[in-house]
C-alpha cells in the first residue's frame, strides 16, 4: 500500500503542482504560539526567531518560507528534510543534539513557573505531586518529567495557560519570555521569581547540511557583535508587552458586556474571523476530495473482495485489499496522516492540503469498502444470477444491477462515515494545515480566550453536519421512490 500510494501521490503531485525550485529558498519551521519568539500576527508569522532568520537569509541570498506546526514536529521536520531550519525557541539539549545540529545560542532563557495569584505553591520545591502543565516536547516538559514527575503535556502553551486559569492545573512551566506575556495578559496569574531551570536557545539544522550551519553561525556571530541581535529581541519584547496591556480584561463589567467584548476581541479585531473562514474552506476542501477518493477506493476494494468471495478469482488482489483494510482500520488516522507527511513524502515538497486529502481519502476508503461490501452481500443472490443468465458479464451485472441496489441500502451508513470524516479532518493541525479547528486554535493563542473560539468552531461543524444530514435525507427519499 505504501509503494502504491507513493507512486500515486508522486504522479498526482507532479501533475497538479509541478516541481518547485528549492535551490534559493529556505524552509523554516516553527510553532507560532510562543510570543515574543514567534506568533501569528495578521496574515504572517512574526517574532524574534522569524526576524533573525529572515535577516540572515537575506544576507545569504535566500528567500524564506515559514511553516507553522506543532512543536513536537519541528525537529522531525528538519531531520526528515522537510524543512531546512527549525527556529522555535528551541533549547539546546544533549538528546536533541543527537538528532540535529545546533547553531550558536542566540539567547539564554529561563523556565519559569506560572501559578494562580492565590496558589499555595511558593517555589519549585512545592511542585511535587502537583498537576503541572507543559508544552509537549519543550525543555520544561523534559525537566519536569525527569526531576519532578509526569506533567500534563499540551500541544500549545496557551492551552496549558487556559487550563491553569480553568483550575485544571496547579502550575505551568514554560519559557520566561512567553511566560511574562501570558501573566501580563491574565490578571489572575503570577510568576514565581526563581526560575526552575536555565537554558540556551539555538536554531536547528539538519546534520546533512553542515554548510548551512556554518553560514548561519557566521552571520549570527556578526549580529551578536554588532548589537543587532539584542535590539531585535528588545523590540519584540516591547511590542508584546504593549499589546498585552490592550488585551487585559477589566473585571467591573456585566456578563453581557464581557461576552460582547470577548466577541470583539476574538472575531472582529484584526479580522480574526478570517482564520475561521479560511480554515473552514480548507476543511471543506479536504473533506470533499477525501470523500471522493474514499468512494473510489471503497468501491474498488469492495468489488474486488466481493468478486473473490463469489467467484474465487482475484485471490492476490483480495489479499492486498485485506492487508489494506487491516492496516488502515487498525491504526489511528492521526498516525497515518503523520506517516504520509513525514515519512512517505519526507523528500518531496508537496502541498499539505493534498497530503491531507490523500491521507483521509485512503483512511475513509477502508471504511467505505466494508460498508459497500456489506451492501453488496445484502443484495439477493438471485439478482446476480439473473444478470449473468441474461449474458451480462460479472462487471456489467455488478455495475448495472448490484451496485445501485447496494448503494441505496448503505446510504445511511455512508452518510454517517462522511460525517465522521468531516470531523476527523480536525486533526489536520498535526501537519500544520490550517483547517477550521486550527483556525480556532490560532485565535485562542492570540486572545487567550478558550470559550468563544471553541464554541464558534463547534457550531460551524454542527451546521455542516446538519446540512449534510438534511441533503442525505433528501437523496434517500428520492432513491426510495424508485421502487
Amino acid at each position, binding site marked *: 500500500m505504501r509503494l502504491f500510494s507513493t507512486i500515486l501521490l508522486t504522479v498526482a503531485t507532479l501533475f497538479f503542482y509541478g516541481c518547485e525550485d528549492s535551490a534559493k529558498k529556505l524552509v523554516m519551521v516553527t510553532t507560532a504560539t510562543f510570543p515574543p519568539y514567534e506568533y501569528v500576527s495578521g496574515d504572517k508569522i512574526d517574532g524574534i526567531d522569524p526576524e533573525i532568520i529572515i535577516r540572515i537569509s537575506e544576507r545569504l541570498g535566500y528567500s524564506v518560507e515559514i511553516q507553522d506546526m506543532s512543536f513536537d514536529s519541528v525537529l522531525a521536520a528538519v531531520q526528515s528534510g522537510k524543512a531546512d531550519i527549525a527556529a522555535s525557541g528551541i533549547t539546546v539539549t544533549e538528546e536533541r543534539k543527537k538528532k540535529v545540529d545546533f547553531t550558536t545560542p542566540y539567547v539564554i532563557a529561563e523556565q519559569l513557573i506560572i501559578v494562580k495569584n492565590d496558589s499555595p505553591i511558593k517555589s519549585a520545591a512545592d511542585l511535587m505531586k502537583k498537576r503541572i502543565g507543559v508544552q509537549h516536547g519543550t525543555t520544561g516538559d523534559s525537566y519536569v518529567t525527569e526531576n519532578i514527575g509526569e506533567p500534563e503535556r499540551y500541544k500549545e502553551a496557551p492551552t496549558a495557560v487556559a487550563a491553569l486559569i480553568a483550575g485544571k492545573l496547579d502550575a505551568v512551566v514554560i519559557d520566561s519570555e512567553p511566560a511574562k506575556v501570558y501573566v501580563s495578559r491574565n490578571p489572575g496569574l503570577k510568576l514565581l521569581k526563581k526560575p526552575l531551570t536555565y537554558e540556551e536557545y539555538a536554531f536547528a539544522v539538519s546534520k546533512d547540511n553542515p554548510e548551512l550551519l556554518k553560514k548561519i553561525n557566521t552571520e549570527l556571530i556578526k549580529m551578536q557583535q554588532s548589537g543587532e541581535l539584542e535590539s531585535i529581541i528588545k523590540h519584540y519584547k516591547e511590542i508584546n508587552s504593549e499589546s498585552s496591556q490592550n488585551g487585559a480584561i477589566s473585571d467591573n463589567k456585566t456578563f453581557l458586556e464581557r461576552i460582547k467584548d470577548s466577541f470583539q476581541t476574538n472575531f472582529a479585531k484584526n479580522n480574526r474571523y478570517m482564520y475561521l473562514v479560511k480554515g473552514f474552506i480548507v476543511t471543506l476542501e479536504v473533506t470533499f476530495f477525501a470523500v471522493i477518493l474514499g468512494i473510489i477506493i471503497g468501491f474498488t476494494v469492495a468489488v474486488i473482495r466481493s468478486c473473490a468471495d463469489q467467484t474465487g478469482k482475484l485471490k492476490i488482489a483480495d489479499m492486498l485489499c485485506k492487508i489494506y483494510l487491516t492496516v488502515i482500520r487498525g491504526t489511528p488516522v492521526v498516525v497515518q496522516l503523520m506517516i504520509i507527511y513525514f515519512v512517505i513524502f519526507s523528500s518531496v515538497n508537496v502541498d499539505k492540503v493534498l497530503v491531507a486529502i490523500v491521507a483521509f481519502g485512503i483512511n475513509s476508503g477502508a471504511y467505505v469498502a466494508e460498508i459497500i461490501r456489506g451492501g453488496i452481500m445484502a443484495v*439477493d443472490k*438471485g*439478482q446476480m*444470477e*439473473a*444478470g*449473468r*443468465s*441474461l*449474458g*451480462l*458479464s460479472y462487471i*456489467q451485472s455488478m455495475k*448495472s*444491477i448490484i451496485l*445501485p*441496489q447496494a448503494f*441505496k441500502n448503505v446510504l445511511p451508513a455512508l452518510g454517517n462515515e462522511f460525517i465522521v470524516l468531516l470531523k476527523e479532518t480536525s486533526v489536520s493541525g498535526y501537519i500544520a494545515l490550517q483547517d477550521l479547528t486550527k483556525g480556532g486554535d490560532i485565535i485562542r493563542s492570540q486572545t487567550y480566550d478558550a470559550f468563544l473560539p471553541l464554541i464558534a468552531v463547534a457550531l460551524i461543524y454542527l451546521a455542516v453536519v446538519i446540512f449534510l444530514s438534511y441533503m442525505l435525507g433528501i437523496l434517500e427519499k428520492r432513491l426510495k421512490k*424508485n*421502487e
Partner: protein
Amino acid sequence: MNENIFEIRNLTKKFSHVTAVNNVSTDIKRGEAVFIVGPSGSGKSTFLRCLNLLETPSGGKIFFKGQDVEKLNINKFRQQLGMVFQHFNLFPNMTIHDNIVLAPVKTELATAKEASKTADLLLKRIGLYDKRNSYPNQLSGGQKQRVAIIRALAMNPDVLLFDEPTSALDPEMVGEVLTLMKELANDGMTMAVVTHEIGFAAGVADRIIFMDQGQIITSGTPETVIENPVNPRVKEFFSKVL
C-alpha cells in the same frame, strides 16, 4: 423433430456432501418442450442450473448446438439461453421497461431504440404495456413472472429454461403464467421446465423427464410417463400428486 439444441452426456454435480445430479444423459431438440418432474430434492433444479452453468458441473459434458459449452465464451453462450426463476429476480431499481432492455443493450444485441421497440411489443403482447414505467414492486406476482419471461424473450434465445416458475405465486396468479408458457410452447419455443404443475405438464409437454435422487428414472411422452407409469417409484409419486 430436428437438430439437438442440448446434448447432455453423463452430467454429474456434486456438492460437498451430496451428489445432486448423478450421471444424467439426455437431449433437448429444437422446438421441444421438456418438463422435468419429480420429488423435492431430486436434483431437477440443479440439473437445469447446470445447463446455463449457474452451477459448474463436476463431471460429464454438455454440448450446445454441437459445441462443448466449456469451450464457449460463457457470456455469449448465456445470451442464447433464457432463464426464468422461481422468485422472478426482476431488478427492483429499474422500471419494467428498463428491466427488459438492459441486457439486449448492454450485450450490444440491439440498439437502445430497437430494444425499446421490442420491449414495447412484448409488453403489449402480455397486456402490461401500461406498466412499462412502473417498478417491479408495484406489480403482482403473476405480472412480475410474466415480465421476467418476456425479459428473457427479449434476448431472442434459442431455448428458455424455467426453474419452478409458479412455485412462489399465489394460486390465483398461477393461471396467467401458465397460459403464457403454453402460448410459447405452441409457438414452437424450445423449453426446459422444472415444475410441480403435473397437470399442466401433461397438457403441454412434448416429453416428460422424471428424476429422483439425481438420476433420470424415466423419460417419454406424457402418456407413457404420467398416465401409464411402469416404474413403481414413478407410479407412487403420481398417485400422490394427481
